[in-house]
């Protein structure tokens, strides 16, 4: 419920462990690039190898500190995390479909949907804003500053 959620301590521990893994990947990648001394001085993996070592060491300390935290305080309650996911999920879909639909169509859907779903606007208000913003962006980027943006089938059909 509203007062329930993952403890802050668990998240801190998780972040420290992810950093550890990241450090491990860095070291692994550096080793395969060579961490020794080559013809041109230090090899490619030399610098990142030690970076990886420092990541591991500092993450271990962070992990130890996280372990000692009070398990009571919440990271955020489920309701709040739900709100965050309500942005994360549509936006993730948005960035994934963007190369196929072009930026304008997907932006119209994102803005309109967001306003109806989370803002509880009536659909026509939402649609006006949802269309107006991409149109404004079209003129600003493509016409004034001559920066091309990704387009999809609709724009091709319209001949833009």
């Amino acid at each position: 419920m509203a007062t329930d959620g993952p403890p802050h301590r668990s998240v801190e521990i998780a972040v420290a462990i992810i950093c550890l893994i990241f450090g491990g990947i860095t070291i692994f990648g550096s080793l395969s690039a060579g961490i020794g001394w080559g013809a041109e001085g230090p090899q490619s993996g030399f610098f990142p190898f030690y970076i990886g070592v420092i990541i591991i060491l500092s993450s271990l300390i962070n992990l130890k500190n996280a372990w000692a935290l009070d398990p009571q305080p919440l990271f955020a309650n489920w309701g709040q995390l739900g709100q965050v996911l309500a942005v994360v999920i549509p936006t993730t879909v948005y960035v994934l479909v963007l190369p196929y639909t072009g930026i304008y169509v997907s932006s119209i859907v994102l803005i309109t949907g967001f306003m109806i779903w989370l803002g509880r606007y009536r659909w026509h208000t939402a649609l006006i804003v949802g269309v107006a913003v991409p149109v404004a962006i079209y003129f600003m980027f493509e016409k004034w500053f001559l920066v091309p943006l990704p387009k999809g089938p609709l724009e091709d059909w319209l001949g833009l």
Partner: protein
Amino acid sequence: MLEDIGNLFHGFAVVIQPFNILLMVVGILLGVIIGVLPGLGGANGIAILLPLTFSMSPTSAIIMLSCIYWGALFGGAITSVLFNIPGEPWSVATTFDGYPMAQQGKAGEALTAAFTSSFVGALFAVIVITLVAPLVAQFALEFGPAEKFSVFFLAFCSFIGMGKEPPFKTVASMMIGFALAAVGLDSVTGSLRLTFGFTELLNGFDFLIAVIGLFGIGEILLTMEEGLSFKGKAAGINPRVVLQTWMELPRYWMVSLRSCLIGCWMGISPAGATPASFMSYGIAQRISKRGKNFGNGEIEGVVAPETAAHAAGTSALLPMLALGVPGSPTAAVLLGGLLIWGLQPGPLLFVEQKDFVWGLIASMYLGNLVGLIIVLTCVPLFAAILRIPFSIIAPIILVICAIGAYTVHNSSFDVILMMVFGIVGYAMKKTGYPLAPMVLAIVLGDKAEEAFRQSLLASGGNLGVFFSNGLVATIMVLGLVALFWGVIASAWSRLRGVPKTA
């Protein structure tokens, strides 16, 4: 010295061209809007708008982008005073006394004081830049790889030792930044590394994508979680209030001067505007006769943090210009812009790109003046933007971030990366890992590594090269002092028998 003043006037001549003045005004307006909106700040705002400048001359481009920066610095104050929401981290301290003043119906005074002190702080810092930067640059022209590395070392150590975040979290965040910077083509040997066979990673991680994701998307997620609803105070600014406040402000010249000095110091050593504003507020509170009343709407409590934040924000450009080492994420983005426009940041800039450098410095003087006038006259307009509900603003900002990320390299993969950085940024902010060191490490990683490897190459792998002459040894020792500053400070206070203040 005289030559510099001549160059500065030449810079003014460049800036005063109508097109550049127009860009300046546009930049300030965009900047204030960026500063007012949640999720958009100086760093990611400039990162998003950077592609718009690709077709401009570098001088016009930097004028517009730096003006966005000044605008964002001004904009933070509006939200702090009227809405009790700091639009930018460095304006958190401004809410302490700014919002209570607004509650007492003195919003106009608070805003005037905030804007004017911002202006004073920035002006002080620009004068420092004008006088000091050419000297530093000239000095730095003789730097070899070891000296260059030592400057990077100093910059990064200051982050660890002086930041308010737990030092090992800062280290982790910074080193992850370095690791991300190392991905892709190794500039020294030309071989690939850390790509694990993904062709998308050949060119490594662009820090602009990281900035847009970490600061932009991450901030939106945080705001969503907090479920903010904006309830603002009315903003009444009229010329009479402005004049009255201006009559009152000279009384606080000591606070101003002290805050300017704190700001410049913190800005040049890359501690940044946020700690500068807190430190300045804290010291003003301790010294002021009315210190007990701080927090209840004391005008001094607005003057101190705003002056320091602007002085720090502006002086952060000094090391960026003179040494090629940015003092803040926003300065880092400007540095990225320099590279894109084909300029090589660093001390040579002062020799080879006089027009550019002095145009930028001149635009700092004018831009802040124009900014002061614009914010004083347009406050109600900007406050109105904040009343647009978040459920409209949020998707628009998401779209703008996506466009910004796409246009950097015309790559859809970058947009996906931006989203990943956004989620990472949210988690990092929530768990107290600082973002700025990571961004700076991504920007400077390659250069720092290159300097490090070149020094080692010259010395045959002997680390003693970093202590081989007086200059490099001094900078390295300063770096070590900064690194262990927390330890040193507590040992010092114990030595003097003073109880440690938390």
